[in-house]
């Protein structure tokens, strides 16, 4: 009988053309897909490719997304955007997604991800792709140069940390709370750059975008990748974005075998309260009760972590027919144009805007801290992934992290609030 393998081992074995791989082994992998954006991509890669006299190994396997510097806020940002567009034309890239949303969200919505693929992204939240059962991780621009020149990348085969979630989430508690709770439990380096895999009934019950939130915050868990084995929910999503049935024939193979060596963590979803991370670390997380009553100036629903369609729907459930506190500014930056359009069709955007939300463009916005940011001394509750000091504005800005449910409930009351009480 063949040795039991983890999902990570199976994907890496395929990518490195080996029968099997063992944790700790260093292997070279063929890359199925490389994604980069306007900050990490062309502006850095193009001069280096010219210097090397090299070309992109396979344009069909490259996706470029303009999301960090759009819409351009100043002349320097405008120049970066112009260079990116010009280079994309010169390279004749077939897959360019310009100002239509954040890379980690638009990549799967265009059908680029599916189980078993080995992918890299020029952004630290690239583990988001793991929600689709592919091994995807973030790399820097120089390493991306190596990938686009050779089509390969080295990897130390990871161990798998399995996060088993039993039980059922309460109303108003979601994947973001699960992610923050795991980061608080294991710490920001707890993932030790290994593969984490999310499993159990509470994970299986999540929709694809909620699963993406778990995989997304594998980055804050310090893992290289954050995997979720494919199931019917994955299959339905993929069919919906145009992945052909013959591309999913082996879907059932891409899971961790019974008896494969993993280290397990067990969590109970039923007793999980909404989670809030206080400044200045996602690991600084406690139950919302510890922070209830904390005055806020800004409530921010944005980013690949916290402004997808399912996140917008959550916020709208809290805010429908209500008005936010007059002391709070609520900003909503939907993670993709498609998500925003669907939210419009469902009346979700209307509920948010009528409650007093200000609509921002479909881009990384304040989360990346590359342009728009918060003002001196402001206290913010945000559905984004990171609250490092000085990331989203001046060092005096205090950023609390919570779920879109929690951000919406806090916007309503003007102070950090337990959404379960607001919904009750």
């Amino acid at each position, binding site marked *: 009988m063949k040795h039991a393998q983890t999902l990570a081992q199976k994907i890496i074995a395929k990518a490195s053309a080996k029968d099997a791989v063992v944790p700790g082994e260093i292997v070279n992998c063929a890359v199925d897909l490389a994604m980069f954006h306007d900050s990490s991509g062309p502006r850095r890669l193009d001069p280096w490719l010219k210097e090397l006299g090299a070309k992109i190994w396979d344009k069909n396997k490259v996706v470029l997304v303009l999301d960090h510097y759009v819409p351009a806020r100043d002349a320097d940002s405008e120049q970066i955007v112009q260079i990116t567009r010009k280079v994309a034309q010169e390279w004749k890239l077939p897959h360019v997604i310009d100002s239509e949303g954040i890379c980690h969200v638009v990549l799967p919505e265009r059908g680029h991800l599916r189980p078993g693929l080995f992918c890299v992204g020029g952004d630290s939240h*690239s583990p988001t792709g793991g929600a689709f059962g592919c091994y995807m991780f973030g*790399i820097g621009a120089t390493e991306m140069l190596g990938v686009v020149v050779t089509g390969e990348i*080295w990897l130390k085969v990871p161990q798998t940390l399995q996060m088993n979630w039993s039980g059922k989430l309460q109303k108003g508690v979601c994947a973001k709370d699960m992610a923050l709770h795991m980061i608080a439990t294991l710490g920001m380096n707890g993932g030790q*750059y290994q593969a984490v895999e999310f499993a159990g009934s509470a994970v299986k019950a999540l929709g694809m975008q909620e699963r993406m939130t778990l995989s997304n915050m594998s980055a804050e868990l*310090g893992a290289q990748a954050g995997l979720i084995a494919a199931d019917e929910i994955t299959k339905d999503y993929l069919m919906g974005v145009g992945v052909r049935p013959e591309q999913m024939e082996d879907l059932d193979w891409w899971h961790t075998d019974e008896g494969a060596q993993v280290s397990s963590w067990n969590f109970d979803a039923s007793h999980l309260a909404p989670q809030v991370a206080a400044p200045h670390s996602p690991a600084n997380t406690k139950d919302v009760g510890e922070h209830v009553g904390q005055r806020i100036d800004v409530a921010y629903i944005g980013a690949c972590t916290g402004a997808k369609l399912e996140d917008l729907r959550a916020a709208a459930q809290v805010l429908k027919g209500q008005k936010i506190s007059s002391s709070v500014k609520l900003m909503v930056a939907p993670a993709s144009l498609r998500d925003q359009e669907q939210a419009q069709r469902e009346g979700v955007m209307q509920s948010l805007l009528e409650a007093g939300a200000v609509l921002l463009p479909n881009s990384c916005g304040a989360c990346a801290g590359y342009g728009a940011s918060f003002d001196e001394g402001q206290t913010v509750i945000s559905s984004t992934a*990171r609250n490092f*000091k*000085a990331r989203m504005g001046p060092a005096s800005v205090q950023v609390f992290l919570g779920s879109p449910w929690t951000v919406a409930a806090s916007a309503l009351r003007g102070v950090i609030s337990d959404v379960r009480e607001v919904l009750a």
Partner: protein
Amino acid sequence: MNNLNSIKPSRVWKFGSQIDTDTLAPGAYMKYSIDVIAKHVLESVRAEFASEVQPGDVMVAGPGFGVGSSREQAAGVLVHLGVKAVIAPSYSGLFFRNAFNLGLLLLTCPRAEELQDAELVLLSGQRLQKANGEPLECEPIPAFLMDMVEHKGLMNVLKLKMKNT
């Protein structure tokens, strides 16, 4: 040879744990070139570092150095300022890859935090000693990564590869 006395000692700049990429390369300056970003390195935790660090100095930090973003400028600013190595008990895995890709040596040293600010250390290749000659054990670094340090980064390694094919 058991000691590294013929090596010019390196001054230690000591930092805390979980020094993140956004502190090393603040987002607001990411649109500029590396020399501009380097002026703002670590400004929210130790403002004088950028102007006072000397080529050949080393940085010592607690666990989790480089957590956060994929921006390799976080390592690039340290290379730009001539930092010879970072010495810490652990690193963000993504930062670890970026540093070697830019030719920056990261020593994984469980006893890193014994070192004090402004102390002198001796460093050659992967070998690290206190000024009094006491060795500090570090996790061995694979040869292909040391090769990247010697060639000052992946770019030069790729150049060599392309010349030879």
